[in-house]
C-alpha cells in the first residue's frame, strides 16, 4: 500500500518565471517528509506536481519505480489534504468520504466498512450525516484527513493543512497526524512554512528556498548543522544571531570591534568565513565587563519557561541571548555577553556553511 517516491531532475516554469529548477529528491517508503520553506519557494508546487495537479516541464516522477508524471491525478493512487480542506459542500461527511471510492467502483460494503473504521479512528462517527457547513474548522480538518485515509493511498500529501486552525487546535492536530503516521506507516509528504510543524512531525525535512532544495536531513541535523545561512536563519526561534566576520587567525574569528571568538572552524577554511551565526542558547548574559562584549538590554521577552534578552552592542547590532525565566534583568540594564564559540556556525560569502571540526 505504501510507496517510495522518486523525483528526478524536475523543472517547472510559468512562462519566463522558473518555479522549480532541476530538482531531484528520493523519498523511501513509510517516511514522513516535510517540505519546509518560505512562501513562494516552490514547496507547494513540488507537492502539486507529485499529486498531478501541476504538470512538469522536464524530468520525471516515479512511484514504486513506475513513472507517474504522464498520469492524471486520479490514477496515481495518492490522497491529498488541502489547506482549505476542499470538502464537497453539498455532500454529507459520509458522501465526501465515499466519493473517491465510488469512482474506483469499490463495492459498497467495503466503502461502508472503511468509512466506519476511519470515522472511529478520527472520532467523527457522530458527524457522518452532517454537511461540511455544519462543522467547525477542526472537524472539517478531520473529515478531510478521513477522506484521504479511506482511500488507503500509496502516499498522503498534506498541503499546509494546519494553517487555518487556531494555535491550540493546531498543536493537537499536529500530534494526531504524527499518531496517524505511526499507525498507518504510510509515506507522507507534508508542506509547511512553520518550522515547529516541520521539526515535530518530520523524519526528514527538505528545506527549500528560491526554487531549490537547501538541505535535506533529520530535524536535529537541520537544526544543529545547517548547510547554508538560509537554513540557519529559517529554522529556530528566535532567529540565529549573525555577525559579519572581520578576519580570522587560525580558528579564532574576529568580529566587530573587540569581539573575537574561538570556533571549531577548520583553520584552512577560516579565511573564507564571511558570516558567523550563533543561536541564542549559546549566548549567556553575564555581569558587565565579565563576558566577551558589553551591551544594553533593549527588549526583554518573557516567554514563561525562559526569557530572551535583546542586547544592543556598542556597534549598533542587537544580539538575542537566552535567560532564565526568573531573571532580575530589566530593560536598560548594562550587561555583558558570553559567547560559546564552539557552537558558532560559519558561512562563506555565498552563504554555504564551512566545515567544522567535530566537537571535543
Amino acid at each position, binding site marked *: 500500500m505504501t510507496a517510495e517516491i522518486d523525483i528526478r531532475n524536475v523543472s517547472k516554469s510559468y512562462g519566463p518565471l522558473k518555479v522549480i529548477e532541476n530538482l531531484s529528491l528520493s523519498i523511501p517508503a513509510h517516511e514522513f517528509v516535510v517540505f519546509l520553506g518560505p512562501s513562494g519557494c516552490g514547496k507547494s508546487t513540488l507537492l502539486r506536481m507529485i*499529486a*498531478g495537479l501541476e504538470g512538469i516541464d522536464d524530468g520525471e516522477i516515479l512511484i514504486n519505480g513506475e513513472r507517474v508524471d504522464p498520469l492524471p*491525478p486520479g490514477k496515481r493512487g495518492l490522497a491529498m489534504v488541502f489547506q482549505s480542506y476542499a470538502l*464537497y*459542500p453539498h*455532500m454529507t461527511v459520509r458522501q465526501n468520504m465515499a*466519493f*473517491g471510492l465510488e*469512482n474506483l467502483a469499490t463495492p459498497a460494503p467495503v466503502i461502508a466498512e472503511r468509512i466506519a473504521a476511519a470515522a472511529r479512528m478520527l472520532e467523527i462517527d457522530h458527524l457522518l450525516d452532517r454537511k461540511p457547513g455544519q462543522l467547525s474548522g477542526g472537524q472539517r480538518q478531520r473529515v478531510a484527513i478521513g*477522506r484521504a485515509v479511506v482511500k488507503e493511498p500509496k502516499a498522503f500529501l498534506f498541503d499546509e493543512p494546519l494553517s487555518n486552525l487556531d494555535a491550540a487546535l493546531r498543536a493537537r492536530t499536529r500530534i494526531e497526524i504524527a499518531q496517524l503516521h505511526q499507525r498507518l506507516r504510510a509515506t507522507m509528504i507534508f508542506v509547511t512554512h512553520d518550522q515547529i510543524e516541520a521539526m515535530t512531525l518530520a523524519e526528514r525535512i527538505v528545506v527549500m528556498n528560491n526554487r531549490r532544495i537547501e538541505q535535506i536531513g533529520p530535524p536535529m541535523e537541520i537544526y544543529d548543522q545547517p548547510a547554508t545561512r538560509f537554513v540557519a536563519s529559517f529554522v529556530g526561534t528566535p532567529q540565529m544571531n549573525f555577525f559579519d566576520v572581520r578576519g580570522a587567525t587560525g580558528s579564532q574569528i574576529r568580529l566587530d570591534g573587540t569581539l573575537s571568538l574561538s570556533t571549531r572552524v577548520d583553520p584552512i577554511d577560516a579565511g573564507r568565513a564571511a558570516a558567523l551565526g550563533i543561536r541564542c542558547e549559546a549566548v549567556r548574559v553575564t555581569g558587565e565587563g565579565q563576558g566577551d562584549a558589553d551591551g544594553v538590554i533593549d527588549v526583554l521577552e518573557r516567554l514563561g519557561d525562559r526569557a530572551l534578552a535583546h542586547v544592543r552592542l556598542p556597534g549598533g547590532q542587537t544580539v538575542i541571548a537566552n535567560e532564565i525565566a526568573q531573571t532580575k534583568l530589566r530593560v536598560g540594564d548594562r550587561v555583558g555577553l558570553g559567547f560559546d564559540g564552539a557552537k558558532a556556525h560559519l558561512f562563506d560569502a555565498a552563504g554555504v556553511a564551512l566545515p567544522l571540526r567535530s566537537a571535543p
Partner: protein
Amino acid sequence: MTARSAPSIKRRRTASANAPDWRNALFVAPYLFFFVTLLVFPLFWGIWLSFHKADIFTNGPFIGLGNYLRLFNDAVFLQSVGNTFYFVLLTVPTLALLGLFLALSLNSNSRLATILRGLFFSSSVLSVTIVTLIWRFVFIPQYGLLSAIYKLFGSEVPSFLTDPNLAMIAIAITTIWWCIGLPMMLFLAALQQIPADIYEAAALDNASRWRTLISITLPSIRRTFVLVVIIQIVMQFQLFGQAWLMTRGGPNNTTRAIVLHIYDLAFRRWDVGMGAAASEVLFVLILAAATIQFLTSRSAGDRS
C-alpha cells in the same frame, strides 16, 4: 478641583455606528417615492379598477367580479392564456438549459471564450424592434436566411410566421436568441464562484468529467438555476413586443399572448376594467408559477 459642584453634564450615550437613525431614511426616500407611486399605487389601483366597469376617461360603477366572469367566458382570452403557457414552456427550459450549456462551454479564460461570451450576450442589448426586424428577415419565405439554408438541402422553407403551428415556435426562437445573454452570464458568475480546490480534490478522487459535472458543478450552482428559471418565468409570461411586431397575435390568434390581449382590451377597446382584470389574472399566474418553482426546488434541495 473646586468645591463648587460642577454643572451637571448631560450624558449622551455613544451610539453604535450601525444604530438606526432617521436620517438614514433620506437615502431611501427617493427610491421609495418612485416605488410607491409607480409600483405599489398602480398595483392597488389596478385591483380596484378590475372590480369596476371603467373606460379610459371615467371610473364606471362597481360590478364586483363581473369583469372576471366575462374574462373566463371569453374564448379568445382563454386561448391567450393557453398560448402564453405554451410560449413559457417553449422558452424557459430552453433558456435555462442552453444558458447553462453555453456557460459551461465558455467558462475559460481563452481569447475565443471571451469573444464568444461577448457575442452571445450582445443580442441582449438590442431593442425588441431590432430583434424582430432581424428575425423577420430570417423567417421571410423565399428570400430569408432560413429559406436559403433550406434550399441548400433542396427543400422548401415552411412559412414560419403564417403557419398556425409554427408561428409561436418562431417567436420562441427569436426570444431565446434575444434573451440568452442573461442566463448565460448568471451561470458564468455562479461557475466562477466554485472554488478551484474542490475540482482538484475531485481530480484526486479519480472523478470523470461527467461525474464531476453531475456531482460537483451542478449541485454547486443549484441556487442560480432556480434564480434563472424564476427570472425567466416572470419575464416570458409577459410576452408582448415580439408577438405584436412579428405576427400581431395571428395567425388565428395562435400567438396572442395575455399581455397582447390586455393591450387590446384596455387601449384599443377602451374596456379598462376588463383589461385590469386580465392583468390581475396574469399577475396571479406569474406569482403562482414562480412560487411553485421556488417551493419545489427548495424541497428537492433539502432532501438531497
